[in-house]
C-alpha cells in the first residue's frame, strides 16, 4: 500500500503540465532518433544532458530521458518493419518477420502488433520496477562496501562476457576504469593524471567523453559511408488493424517477451539487443512447428518487440535503486543525476523519492503517449526516413559541439571530445566495444570509494574484500560468468578434435 501511495505521489509530479511536456518532447525525440540512423539512445541522452543542465530541473531531465529511452525502441522498430533497416540494434530481430509481413501486405498489422506489444511490455516493465523498488533499495541499504564492490565487479564481468570479444571487452572496461581515476583522488586529495592542466583537476567530464566516443565516432563512420547510401523505398502501409487471429497469436507472445525482456534487461551488459534474440528463440520454442518463422509469423515480431521495451524498464531498475547502470544509456542518465548533485544508488529513493517515483509514473505516461504518437504519425515517420545523411551527420556534429561547449563553456572540452571521437572511431574499427568503457568510467570512482571504505574500516587489511560470505558468493558467480565461455570453447575444441573429419558437423550458431 505504501508503494501505491508513493506511486500516486509520483503521478502527481508527472502529470504537471511542464513534466508532461518534457515527457512528450522525450518521447518524440526518442522516436525520431530511433527512426534515424546515426544517433542511438546513448548518444541522444549524452547530447541532451548539458542542455538539461541549462534548464536546471533534474526531474524534468530524467522524465525526458525516460521518454527518449522508450521512444527510441518504438522508432527503431518502425524502420525495421517498413524498410527492413533497423534504426537501432535492438530492432534487428524485427526485420526477420516484421518486414516479411509488410511484403505479404500486412504492414498495418505489423506496426500495430509492435506498438501494442511495446505498450504492454512497457506497462508490465514499469509495474515490475514499481514492485522491485522497495526490496532492491532495502537490499542495497543493508549491504556494506565489500558487497557493493562485489556487485559492481559482477556487473563488469557480465559486461565483459556479454559485450563482444571477452579480451577486448575486458580491456575496454579497464580502460574506462583508468579514465575514471583522472583528477583528484577523493580519499587522499591527491591530484592524479592531470598533466599540469587545471581543466583535469575534476577529472574527465563524462558527457564530453560519451559524446566523443559515441556521437563523433558515429559521424566519422557515417560520413564515410554517405556516398554509398541509397534512399530507402517504403511500401504502402495500408490499414492499421490486426485480425482476431493475429491478436490471439500475439497476446501470449507479448507476455512471454515482456518477462524475458525485463529479466535480461536487469543484467548489466545484456541489453535490449540480447533480449530480443532470446525472445525470438523463446517464441520458436513455444510455437507449433507449422508457424512460419522468418516468413511473416506475427509471434516472431510480437515477442521481440515486447522484450525490447521490457528490457528498457529492466535496465532502469539497477540504475535507479543500486546506482549500477547496465548500459551506456543508463550510465549517462546516472551521470546526469550526479551532475544535478543528486545522490545515486539506494539513497536516491530514500532522500529524493519524488525524483524516482516521478520518473516511474512518467514511464506509464510515456507508454501511452508513444502508442498515440507512433501509429497515427506513421506517414510522418516514413518522410523522416528520407532525411539525407549528407545533411544529418554534419548537423549531428554541430549539435555535439553545442552540447559539449555548453557544459563548461571552454574549448578544452571540444578538443577532448574530438580526441575521444577519433579514439572511438579507431576502437570501433578494431572491434573494441565502447559501452563497457563508458560504464567503467562512471563506476570507477564508486568502486574506488567502496574499496577505500572497506579497507579503511579494516585499518589497512585488504583481505577484508574476501571477508563477506555474500561478497564471496558474488565473486564466484562473477568468475563463472567469465570462465564458462572459455570452458565451453575448450570443450567444443576437444569434441571437434575427437571427432573424425568426415563425421564433423558444422559448428551450430546459437544465441
Amino acid at each position, binding site marked *: 500500500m505504501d508503494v501505491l501511495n508513493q506511486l500516486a505521489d509520483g503521478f502527481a509530479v508527472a502529470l504537471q503540465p511542464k513534466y508532461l511536456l518534457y515527457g512528450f518532447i522525450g518521447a518524440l525525440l526518442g522516436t525520431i532518433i530511433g527512426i534515424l540512423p546515426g544517433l542511438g539512445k546513448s548518444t541522444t541522452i549524452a547530447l541532451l544532458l548539458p542542455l538539461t543542465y541549462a534548464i536546471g530541473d533534474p526531474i524534468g531531465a530524467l522524465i525526458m530521458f525516460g521518454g527518449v529511452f522508450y521512444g527510441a525502441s518504438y522508432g527503431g522498430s518502425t524502420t525495421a518493419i517498413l524498410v527492413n533497416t*533497423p534504426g537501432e540494434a535492438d530492432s534487428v530481430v524485427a526485420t526477420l518477420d516484421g518486414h516479411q509481413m509488410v511484403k505479404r501486405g500486412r504492414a498495418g498489422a505489423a506496426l500495430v502488433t509492435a506498438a501494442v506489444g511495446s505498450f504492454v511490455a512497457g506497462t508490465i516493465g514499469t509495474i515490475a520496477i514499481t514492485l522491485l523498488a522497495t526490496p532492491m533499495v532495502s537490499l542495497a541499504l543493508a549491504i556494506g562496501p565489500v558487497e557493493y564492490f562485489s556487485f559492481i565487479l559482477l556487473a563488469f564481468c557480465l559486461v565483459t562476457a556479454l559485450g563482444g570479444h571477452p579480451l577486448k571487452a575486458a580491456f575496454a572496461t579497464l*580502460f574506462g576504469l583508468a579514465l575514471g581515476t583522472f583528477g583528484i583522488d577523493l580519499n587522499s586529495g591527491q591530484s592524479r593524471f592531470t598533466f599540469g592542466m587545471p581543466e583535469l583537476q575534476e577529472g574527465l567530464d563524462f558527457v564530453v567523453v560519451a559524446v566523443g566516443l559515441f556521437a563523433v565516432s558515429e559521424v566519422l*563512420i557515417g560520413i564515410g559511408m554517405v556516398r554509398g547510401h*541509397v534512399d530507402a523505398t517504403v511500401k504502402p502501409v495500408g490499414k492499421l488493424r490486426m485480425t482476431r487471429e493475429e491478436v490471439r497469436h500475439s497476446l501470449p507472445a507479448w507476455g512471454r517477451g515482456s518477462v524475458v525482456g525485463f529479466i535480461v534487461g536487469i543484467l548489466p551488459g545484456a541489453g535490449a539487443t540480447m533480449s530480443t534474440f532470446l525472445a525470438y528463440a523463446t517464441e520458436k520454442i513455444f510455437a507449433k512447428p507449422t508457424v512460419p518463422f522468418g516468413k511473416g509469423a506475427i509471434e516472431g515480431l510480437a515477442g521481440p518487440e515486447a522484450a525490447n521495451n521490457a528490457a528498457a524498464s529492466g535496465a532502469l531498475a539497477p540504475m535507479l535503486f543500486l546506482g549500477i547502470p547496465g548500459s551506456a544509456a543508463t550510465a549517462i542518465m546516472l551521470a546526469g543525476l550526479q551532475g544535478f548533485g543528486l545522490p545515486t544508488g539506494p539513497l536516491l529513493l530514500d532522500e529524493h523519492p519524488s525524483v524516482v517515483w516521478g520518473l516511474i509514473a512518467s514511464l506509464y505516461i510515456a507508454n501511452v503517449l508513444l502508442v498515440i504518437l507512433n501509429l497515427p504519425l506513421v506517414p510522418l515517420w516514413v518522410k523522416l526516413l528520407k532525411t539525407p545523411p549528407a545533411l544529418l551527420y554534419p548537423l549531428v556534429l*554541430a549539435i555535439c559541439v553545442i552540447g559539449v561547449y555548453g557544459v563548461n563553456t571552454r574549448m578544452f572540452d571540444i578538443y577532448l571530445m574530438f580526441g575521444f571521437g577519433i579514439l572511438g572511431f579507431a576502437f*570501433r574499427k*578494431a572491434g573494441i566495444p565502447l*559501452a563497457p568503457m563508458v560504464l567503467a568510467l562512471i563506476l570507477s570512482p564508486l568502486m574506488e570509494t567502496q574499496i577505500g571504505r572497506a579497507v579503511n574500516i579494516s585499518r589497512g587489511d585488504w583481505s577484508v574484500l574476501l571477508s563477506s560470505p555474500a561478497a564471496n558468493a558474488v565473486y564466484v558467480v562473477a568468475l563463472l560468468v567469465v570462465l564458462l565461455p572459455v570452458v565451453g570453447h575448450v570443450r567444443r575444441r576437444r569434441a571437434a578434435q575427437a571427432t573424425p573429419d568426415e563425421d564433423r558437423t558444422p*559448428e551450430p550458431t546459437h544465441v
Partner: protein
Amino acid sequence: MADSLARAAEELRGSGSPVDPGGPARARAAASAPAHAPVPPQPPALVQGPAGVGGTGPAGLDDEAGVEDPSPEGSAPERGAQLTRAVFLAVVPLLIGGLYLWQVLKLPELGRQVVVSPRAWPLLIAGAMVLFATLITVGIVLRRWGLADDGEDEHLQRNDVLGVLLALLVLAVTFEWLGFLLSSFLLVGTLSTMTSPDRWRRNVLTAAGFAVVSQVLFDQLLGVHLPQGLLWIPTW
C-alpha cells in the same frame, strides 16, 4: 550504421535462425549483398556504437571461427582491413596499458599516512590492463582466439573521413574567434557539400537555417552561452 544493421538483418534471414551476428555468423556472413546498399558486403557492427552493449556470445574465443588467415574468398580490402585491425590490436592496447602503468608509477608518494594510497586503485587497474593487453598481443601474434575477426568493416570513403577530421581541426582553432554562428554554418555547409556537391544550394540553406535557429534556441532561450566571435548578435 543503418547499412550495417540492414546487412545484419539480411544475414539473419539467410541463416534461417536467430543467430548472434556478433559470433561466428559474422565470419561467414559477408557473402550476401544487401538489396539496397551498393557497398561491398561487410560483417555487421551490432556490438559497437550507441546502441549499447550488444548480445554477442562467447564465440569470440572459438578458434574455428577465429583463425586469422583471411579466407580464400575474402577480398583484398577485407584482408587489408583485417591486417590493419590486427596491427592496431597488437600495438595500441599494450601501448595504452604501458603508458598508464608508467604514469601510475610516477605518482608521488604522500608525505603523510593514508590507509589507501592514491596509487593503489590505479596500480591494480594498470596491472590488469597490461595483462589483458599482453594477452591480446599474444593472441594476435599467434593468430588465436579470433581477435582480428570482428570490427566495423564498412567500406568508408577515406577522403571524406579525412575531410571531417580536417573540418574539426579548423573548427577547434576558429570556433571562439569566428563565433558559433559562422563556424557552425561553415562546418555544416562544408561537410554536407563535400559528400553531396550537387545539392549545394540545399546544403547552404540548411546550414544557414540551422546556425540561426541554434543560436536563438540555445544561446538566447536556453541560456547555453555560445561565442559571438566576429558578429554582433543582439540579445533579448
